[in-house]
């Protein structure tokens, strides 16, 4: 309720995860708090999966959230555009197709007859994998083809990969690095190479539509801090790694191995650009693969980039285009 700034609490949601580095660093360094000023309380909640965050956002318990493109699209489509808007990006890249050395996969053709895992049926990586296979002229087993796509949870992918039960896996960080470092996995394909400018969206910032309408000023203040943090990370990568890992340890009780952090950050780009084109394209592939229902979802209006562009122009940075 907008009864004066004194009573406002902003509920921020994110994951204790490398791809959410902007949130982790921004919270730890107090950048968000400072931007909001003393009259606004910042309440943070961490999640382990996008759907839960969107659920909480639906219920009005999250105002601003860091979340992957797929949950953002689903939330937008399911609420017929009434629940949320994407207001910025947070990271790009960070997904690869890792193959097992013993599987002898040198070229796309070698994927024929292999078992490739993805973390979630219809999820971002699953779509990317299926789309890639389609482009290479390969058919998946469920469509009568030869490549078996096995949707299974990230940690189980690691176990199965170790056991040699999988030939490859299209996974996000930090699991991609884990497979490489711990299980001699080979990077067959860095997903960035498939995209123009080697960039595709991995993490978005979404805002609850109602909140945006009621507190456009707070959203702008938040974006200010968000952009500041992105810039901080770009110029302070080493301290960022330390902050990210200590935050992960604080939030989950367990830190990552520094080598995994290092390699993950190499495969990842931190950016405030939501990379709208990649989102639309990914949604198109998903629809073509039959994951978004029978009628093509209308994503027109999912972005609200005016506040971001306002922030950018005040910082003399180039504005972001919606398409």
């Amino acid at each position, binding site marked *: 309720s907008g009864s004066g700034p004194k009573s406002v609490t902003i509920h921020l949601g994110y994951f204790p995860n490398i791809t959410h580095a902007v949130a982790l660093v921004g919270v730890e360094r107090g950048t968000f708090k400072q931007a909001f000023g003393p009259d606004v309380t910042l309440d943070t909640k961490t999640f382990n999966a996008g759907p839960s965050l*969107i659920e909480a956002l639906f219920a009005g318990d999250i105002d601003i959230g860091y979340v992957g493109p797929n949950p953002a699209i*689903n939330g937008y489509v399911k609420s017929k555009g009434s629940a949320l808007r994407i207001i910025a990006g947070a990271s790009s890249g960070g997904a690869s197709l890792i193959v097992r050395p013993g599987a002898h996969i040198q070229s796309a053709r070698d994927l024929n007859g292999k078992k490739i895992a993805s973390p979630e*049926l219809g*999820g971002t990586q699953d779509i990317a994998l299926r789309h890639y296979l389609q482009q290479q002229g390969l058919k998946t087993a469920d469509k009568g083809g030869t490549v078996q796509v096995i949707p299974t949870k990230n940690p189980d992918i690691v176990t199965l990969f170790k056991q040699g039960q999988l030939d490859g896996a299209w996974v996000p960080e930090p699991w991609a690095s884990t497979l490489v470092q711990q299980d001699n996995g080979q990077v067959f394909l860095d997903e960035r190479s498939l995209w123009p400018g080697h960039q595709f969206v991995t993490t978005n910032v979404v805002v609850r539509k109602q909140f945006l309408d009621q507190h456009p000023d707070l959203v702008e203040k938040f974006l200010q801090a968000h952009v500041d943090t992105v810039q901080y990370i770009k110029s302070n990568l080493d301290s960022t790694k330390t902050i990210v890992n200590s935050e992960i340890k604080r939030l989950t009780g367990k830190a990552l191995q520094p080598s995994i952090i290092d390699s993950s950050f190499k495969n990842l780009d931190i950016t405030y650009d939501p990379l709208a084109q990649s989102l639309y394209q990914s949604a198109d592939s998903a629809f073509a693969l039959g994951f978004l229902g029978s009628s093509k979802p209308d994503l027109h209006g999912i972005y609200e980039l005016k506040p971001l562009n306002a922030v950018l122009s005040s910082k003399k940075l180039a504005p972001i285009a919606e398409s």
Partner: protein
Amino acid sequence: MARALNPAAGPTISIPWAKVLRKTIFFACLLALWEALARTGIWPDYLFPGPLAVADKLISGFGDSSFFIAILVSLRRLLIGYCISLVVGVIFGLLIGRNKLIEETLGSLVLGLQALPSVCWIPLAILWFGLSEQAMTFVVVMGALFSIILGVVAGVKNTPPVYLKAARNMGSHGLPLALQVILPAALPTILTGLKQGWTFAWRSLMAAELIYITVSLGGLLDTGRNLNDTAQVIAVMLIIIAIGAAIDAIFFTPLEKRVRERWGLAR
């Protein structure tokens, strides 16, 4: 007090219309309440879809037969896992209930083991069975097994000692004692354990079916959740509830009723 004697009571099975009517009214009321709640608009319909949205989902799901397949696949896994748990659970339950040493050792772990969430067994399942139906069965078994053991142990220990004394006096021991005396004497309690095991089996199955996603109720539930498709989640919930109520009505309730009647516990 006085009622006319109905000589037909007992043997003939007649459809209890009054009961059917009462049930129908109850479920109709539930539906109406749900629709009313959904209509108030307190909660947006993507969070709290009404019965119509869910019915749509059910119709289209059954229409393209994907729900049928999912139900068949899941029920098959459930039944296999449950039957294994049943056999193993009864055997271990008898052992723990009758043998002081096994009770002190293995028995002391059962409550803790049963408290473990199913995801704990998934790594072990993958380790031992890889990506296979057996891995899922294993998770279902580990979900239901200890619960059934708890029920059998309780049944065995709550058996009035006079039955055991009488049986041992008449020369019953070992396996015949277990099968002809302890199990039947414990049956009313064991049946409750079986019901609890049944619900555990379901829940574990939902976790097991995420080991790798196929068309199954667990898969549908997970997909529904991942897509924030609440209507699909509720549709799967309704299917689970309906199967539960059906199994209860077809299997457990008549069995319990018969056992209670025979044991002289019916009122």
